[in-house]
C-alpha cells in the first residue's frame, strides 16, 4: 500500500458543555499520513492546539481497537465514518485524500446530551440494561456449564447479537434516533439462550418501556442502524424483539 500525506480541512463541532449552544470551527490540518488512524489525526491536531495555547477537542475513546465502544464521531454524515463495519478508532486516513473537507459532529440525540465537543452522555444505554438486560443468576447459583446443550445455530445467533459494543452508532445513524437495534441485540441474545427464557417476557417489556422513557425515537425500519453498526448487528434482531414484545404483551397481566 502506498503511503501518502495529505492536507485536510476539518470542520469540528465545539461545545463547552451541555448548556452551551455550540458551533462548528474550522481547522487546517496539514501533513496527515495515510497510515494514521482517524483518532491519531485528532491527537495531532490536539497536540497543536495545546501548543498554541488553545483548548484541545474533547472526544471519547479508549481501547482504540474497535471493541470498547467509546469512540463516537459522526464523520461527513456517517456514524463512525465512511467504512462499513468499522469504529472511528479503526477508521484510517487512507479513507481520505488530500484537500478533503471533513465535518465531524457528535452523536446527535436528545437521549445522548453533549457533554463537551464530541463527547456525549450515553448513560441511557446503561439504564436500559438495568431494566432487564441480564439473567437473574446470583454468583454460585449456576449448574454445570454443559448441563444444558444449546443448538449451535442459536448459540451462534446469540453471539452475533451479543457482539454489540454499545457505542450508540445505531441511534446516531437512525433518522429517528431510535435505540431499537441496541435493545433488540440484548433481548435477542438472551431470548435465544435457554438460560434467558424464564425472564424473557418481563425483559422485553421492561427494556422497551425504559427505552421509551429515555426519549429515543421509534423504529421506522429504514435499516440505517444496521448499515452503520460497526459490529454489523442484523435487523433480524429488531424483528425478534418485536415478536418477543408482542408475545410478552399478549400474556402479561
Amino acid at each position, binding site marked *: 500500500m502506498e503511503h501518502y500525506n495529505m492536507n485536510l480541512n476539518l470542520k469540528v463541532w465545539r461545545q463547552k458543555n451541555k448548556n452551551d449552544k455550540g458551533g462548528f470551527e474550522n481547522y487546517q490540518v496539514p501533513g496527515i499520513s495515510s497510515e494514521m488512524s482517524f483518532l491519531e489525526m485528532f491527537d495531532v491536531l490536539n497536540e497543536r492546539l495545546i501548543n498554541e495555547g488553545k483548548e484541545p477537542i474533547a472526544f471519547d475513546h479508549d481501547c482504540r481497537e474497535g471493541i470498547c*465502544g467509546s469512540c463516537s464521531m459522526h464523520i461527513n454524515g456517517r456514524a463512525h465514518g465512511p467504512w462499513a463495519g468499522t469504529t472511528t478508532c479503526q477508521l*484510517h486516513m487512507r479513507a481520505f485524500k488530500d484537500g478533503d473537507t471533513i465535518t465531524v459532529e457528535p452523536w446527535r440525540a436528545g437521549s445522548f446530551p453533549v457533554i463537551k465537543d464530541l463527547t456525549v452522555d450515553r448513560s441511557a*444505554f446503561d439504564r436500559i*440494561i*438495568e431494566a432487564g438486560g*441480564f439473567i437473574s443468576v446470583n454468583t454460585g447459583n449456576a449448574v454445570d456449564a454443559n448441563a444444558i446443550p444449546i443448538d*449451535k445455530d442459536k448459540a451462534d445467533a446469540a453471539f452475533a447479537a451479543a457482539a454489540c459494543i454499545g457505542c450508540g452508532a445505531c441511534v446516531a445513524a437512525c433518522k429517528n434516533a431510535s435505540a431499537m437495534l441496541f435493545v433488540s441485540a440484548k433481548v435477542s441474545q438472551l431470548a435465544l439462550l435457554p*438460560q434467558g427464557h424464564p425472564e424473557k417476557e418481563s425483559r422485553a417489556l421492561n427494556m422497551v418501556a425504559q427505552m421509551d422513557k429515555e426519549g429515543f425515537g421509534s423504529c421506522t425500519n429504514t435499516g440505517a442502524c444496521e448499515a452503520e453498526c460497526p459490529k454489523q448487528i442484523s435487523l433480524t434482531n429488531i424483528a425478534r424483539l418485536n415478536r418477543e414484545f408482542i408475545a410478552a404483551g399478549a400474556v402479561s397481566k
Partner: protein
Amino acid sequence: MLNAKIPAGSLNDKWNDYKGHCKLVNPANKRKLEVIIVGTGLAGASAAASLGELGYKVKAFCFQDSARRAHSIAAQGGINAAKNYQNDGDSVFRLFYDTVKGGDYRAREANVHRLAEVSTNIIDQCVAQGVPFAREYGGLLSNRSFGGTQVQRTFYAAGQTGQQLLLGAYSALQRQVSLGNVEMFARHEMLDIVKIDGKARGIIARDLVTGKLERHFGHAVLLCTGGYGNVFYLSTNAMGSNVTAAWKAHRQGAYFGNPCFTQIHPTCIPVSGDHQSKLTLMSESLRNDGRIWVPKKKDDPRKPNEIPEEERDYYLERRYPAFGNLVPRDVASRAAKERCDAGYGVGSSKQAVYLDFSEAFSRYGHIEAGKRGIHNADANMLYKLGVEVVTEKYGNLFEMYAKITGEDPYVVPMRIYPAVHYTMGGLWVDYELQTSIPGLYALGEANFSDHGANRLGASALMQGLADGYFVIPYTLGNNLADDISTKAIPTTHPAFEAAEKAVQATIDTFLNIKGTKSVDHFHKKLGKIMWEKCGMARNEANLKEAIVEIQELRKEFWKDVRVPGTANEFNPELEKAGRVADFLELGELMCLDALNRRESCGGHFREESQTEDGEAKRDDENFSYVSAWEYKGDGQYELHKEALEFVECKPTQRNYK
C-alpha cells in the same frame, strides 16, 4: 519477610478449609457495611455484582462513560478452566502446574491452586449469565488450546471472549444497580485513598464531567483497576488504562509487588510512525498456523513474496525445533527482537518480522481439495480453498490487520513485532487479596499474585473473574466480620478533608505550571526510556541510566507541563496529567526492581543472566522471592521480600528446544 497469611494444610485443602472456617457476616449486618470498588473490568464488575448480591452496600467507580467499557473488553483469545470436557487429561492440578511453570516459578503456589480450583465455577457462572461461548454441533461447549499447555482447556467466544465475559459481569452489575444494592459512578476517577487509624476507609474521586471532587466512605476499598502497561506509552492497553489508583495506594503504604514483571506479546501490529497512539494485538492463536521468518540477508530490499524459500530464516523453528512457532510469549518476543537488533528486521522501520500464512493456505488447500474430492486442483485453486479455511478461523483478525495497515494479509505476509501487553506485577496482596493497608484490597491485574513472571494466554480473564466472583466474597467477609460495629464514618472527618485538600492542591499545581509541553510529550519520552531500557532486555548499565533519565524527566514535567482548561469542567488533558505524573514515579520503581532482580525469569530478561545460547537463566537460590516495595517518599523505596516456597511444583529450567 512478608507474611502472606497462607492457610496451613495441603495445597488441595487450603481453600476449602479457609472457606469452611472463615468468619461470616450476617445479612442484617451486611446491609450496614459499605464497600467501595474502583474499576469495573472483569474483577471489579464481578466483585461489585457478587458483593451486591450478598447484601453489602456497594459503590462502584469507573473512569469510562460506562462500566461496560473497561479494558477487559478487549481480551481476544479465551479463558482457561480445568473442566476436562475434552477428556484429554486436564485437571485442577494440571492447570495449577502449567500456570506456576508458565510463570517461571515466581508465583505463589497457594493462590494459583485456588485459581485453578475456582476456574470451573467461572465457566458455569458465565454460561448461566448468558455468555455465548462457542459450541460444538452437539450443543456442548467448544475448547481450543493456547500456548504453554498440552490440553484443550480454553473456552472462547470467537475473538471476543473478554467482551462477552465482561458484558456478562456488567449485566450482573447493572442488575444490582437496578436493585439498589450497587450505586454506580461512571466518569469518576479515584484520586486518593483515605486512611483512618491505619485502615482504608474511603476514597477521593473526581467527577470527570463537572470536575468536582467527591468524598466516599467505605468500610473497605477494593482496587480492581487493571495493569500499568501504559507506562510504556505504546502498549496494547486502552488509552485510559493507568496506574493511578494503585499508585496512590502505594504512596499511602500499600507495597508494590514485582513491578518489573511485564509481558511483551510477540504478535502485535508494528509501529507505523511517530503519530502512533497504541498498538494492536494479533491473537496468539495465529501462531498455530502462521510461520514467523525474516530474510537471511541483512537489509534485504526485496518484497517478501520475492524472497525464495531458501533465503528465509524461520528463526523460531531453527532455534526451538521442539516447539517451533509455538514457544511461550516471552521467548518468541525476545527472539524477534534479537533478529531485528541484528539487522534482519523487515518493513520500513526494520522493527518487524513476517508472520506468513502461505504454507497454511496451501496445506489447508490440499486438505480441503481432498475433502471435496477435487483431484486436479492447480495452485490457484488450492490457494483459494486454503484461504477459505483460514478466513473461517481467523477472518476477523485478518480484516483488522488489513484495516490498520492497508495491506492484504492474504497476499502479503503480516508484519508483526512484540509489544507491551500485560503487567504481572501489581499491588502486593496476601492470600485474602488484602494489600499491606488493612481494608484495602487489590483484585485482577491490579494485584501481583497469580502469574509469576509470565502469564499464560487465557489466564488473565480467569484470574479477574476468580478474584471477583469466588474469592473476595469470602475473604472480605472474613475481615469485615470484625468491622460490623464500625458505623459509617462521616466524610467530614479530618482525614477526608485533608485528602481532598491534597488532591485539590495537585490539580491546582498541574493547571498553574502553564509550561510549554503537552502531557503526551512527557508520556512519549517516558515510554521511550522504558521500552529501550526496561523493555524486552534489561541490563544494569541501562537500568541505572534509565533511573536518572526518569528522575530528570519527572523534574522537567513538574516544571514545564502544559495542562489547558480548568479544574471544574470535563478536561481530559488534566486527567492524563495526573496519570502520567504517576507513571513517571512508577517507571523509576520498575527500573529499580529490574535492577534488583539480577536474574532472568519469564518476561524479565537480564542480559547478564543468560545461558550460552542466549536463553533466560533463573537464579532460584538468590531470587526465589516476591519483591514488595514500600514507598518511603519521592524516589525512595524499601524492599521487602516474600519468600516463595514450592511444595508441589519443583522449579526446573524451562526448555523449548
